[in-house]
């Protein structure tokens, strides 16, 4: 946690460009930030520092104060269960967290997922005894090869499911990217963070209005 200014953790990969566009629209200069080089730390004008991390790691960076704020998917926030503030729905990265499987069933008791905590909670709430199989990717493969009967994963367009002959069986949660903050930074740097929330909030609101009027 830098003494002055704000350190913001952004997810490498798919959502980086959208995240940067949001920041730029909110009036923050995003300079030369990109994830194609090996550089992971960027000092920008206006006392802003950007660090790039794996999407799943963003809550960790923020909870420990390595970054004051970050852009993190609601799925990742739910899974990591770190103590942090969820300040704003940024409206980007929209998708659904779903249970999926081959059409018809019946299904065995194994569920493959990248989200063991969410899956454990979800099936406990629904009174169903399952064995959670923790995978780090390509979860949709599991039902095809008999590793698990069902999967719990994010679904955006549904194309991956379709290609693997899977269908959505239940929706667990609606996911968007959130602005999260470290509990200490949220107080110690209240002014800077409030400013960020207000500016980003305005951009998000404008965009929503834009969609509605279209």
């Amino acid at each position: 946690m830098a003494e002055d200014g704000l350190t913001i953790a952004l997810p490498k990969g798919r959502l980086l460009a959208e995240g940067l566009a949001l920041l730029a629209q909110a009036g923050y200069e995003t300079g030369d930030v990109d994830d194609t080089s090996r550089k992971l730390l960027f000092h920008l004008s206006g006392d802003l520092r950007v660090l790039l991390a794996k999407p799943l790691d963003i809550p960790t960076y923020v909870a420990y104060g390595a970054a004051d704020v970050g852009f993190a998917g609601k799925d990742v926030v739910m899974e990591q269960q770190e103590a942090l503030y969820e300040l704003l729905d940024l409206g980007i990265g929209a998708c659904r967290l779903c249970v999926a499987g081959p059409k018809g069933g019946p299904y065995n008791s194994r569920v493959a997922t990248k989200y063991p905590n969410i899956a454990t909670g979800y099936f406990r709430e629904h009174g169903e005894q399952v064995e959670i199989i923790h995978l780090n990717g390509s979860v949709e493969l599991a039902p095809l090869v008999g590793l698990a009967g069902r999967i719990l994963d994010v679904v955006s367009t549904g194309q991956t499911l379709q290609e693997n002959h899977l269908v959505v069986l239940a929706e667990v949660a609606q996911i968007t990217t959130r602005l999260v903050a470290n509990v200490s930074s949220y107080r110690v740097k209240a002014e800077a963070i409030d400013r960020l929330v207000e500016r980003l909030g305005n951009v998000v609101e404008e965009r929503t209005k834009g969609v509605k009027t279209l």
Partner: protein
Amino acid sequence: MLIEKPWGTHDFLPGEAAQKKQMEDRLLDLFARWGYQLVETPPFELDASLPEGPRPGERRFQFFDDRGRLLVLRPEWTFSIARLAATSLREKPLPLRLCYSGPVFHAEQGAGRDAVFHQVGVELLGCAAPEGDAEVLALASDALRAVRLERVRLVVGHTRFLDGLTAELEEAQAQALREALVRRDLVGYQAVAATLPAAVTDRTLLQRLPTLRGDAAFLQQLQDSVEGKAARHALQELLEVAASAHAATQGFPFLFDLSLLRHPAYYTGLIFEGYVSGVAFPIVGGGRYDKLLDHYGRPAPATGFAIGVERLMDAGAVSEAPVKPIYLWYGSGEEEEAWQLAERLRQRGQRVVCGKEPPAAPACYAAVRRLVEMRQQEKSSTEEVEGDWQKMD
């Protein structure tokens, strides 16, 4: 053989341990000057005597005594102090001012949460709002100053502000709002707040709650826009307490935050947390808990706070650097004289290690002296001896 320490625990090494003790002593000394008496309780309590089970996400260390009764390693100090006040100290008149220092135990792991951590704190029992709150808030501010912290932010809220605003809501809705705040999920909070019926008295205020933070002037302004009586009263109390606490200590600036919520089943009034630039977790937390002593059969209003010792150390709140001893060495036949000389030096407050032959690791000592040198030095006056050492370092 497996030789490692249990997860979530920390060894305090030479230097660290001394620093920790100095910090605890400094705080206890300050509490004593405010009239708080030190108490100690056993590190475990009977589970059946505790007022509440684990909070969401909290896990406790539990074990059985030889009669099969469940015991719990103290998850916090306040339960034990409340039990003490209602039993052993039952005959002592209120208000009671008590303070403590020692470890608390949690079986869960996560960012900023260890299995064993140390707290130094106070409990003011039998003193109602607002006087009690002002005293405790001023003392917390003074305590952080005593360990030389700078750039502290004390965040102050009030449970009855939200209670007041949500009084006319359906319980399920009020519950959903509180739970979102406890989870720190302000997005979730706003989603619930957006569905409130239009007829709710302070509807817009409830919807704006996460943004309701600022200084005393902000709070003053806010008062005019509050319709509900209970909420308005809570604001009034906050302002009074803050004004007198601030006047008492010229302490750190307060940040009022009306969305601050700590364990809603437990706290009943003014609550606060302290944060320091550069430390990712709160270093102090506390507030008013007027219901807790009911459970122990001695109803009384009460308030207090606990400071996290490890977090103070993270924040660099440090006293003097540890002092190294000098090393006095002697040859054959000089033992007796050497030990006597060492004794005289120790009586004068010097730290002295005495041994045969020079030390293997001289860097561990402030100075290394042979007996003959020291004998000559001692012949000059006491003051000069001390002066000489400083020159020789």
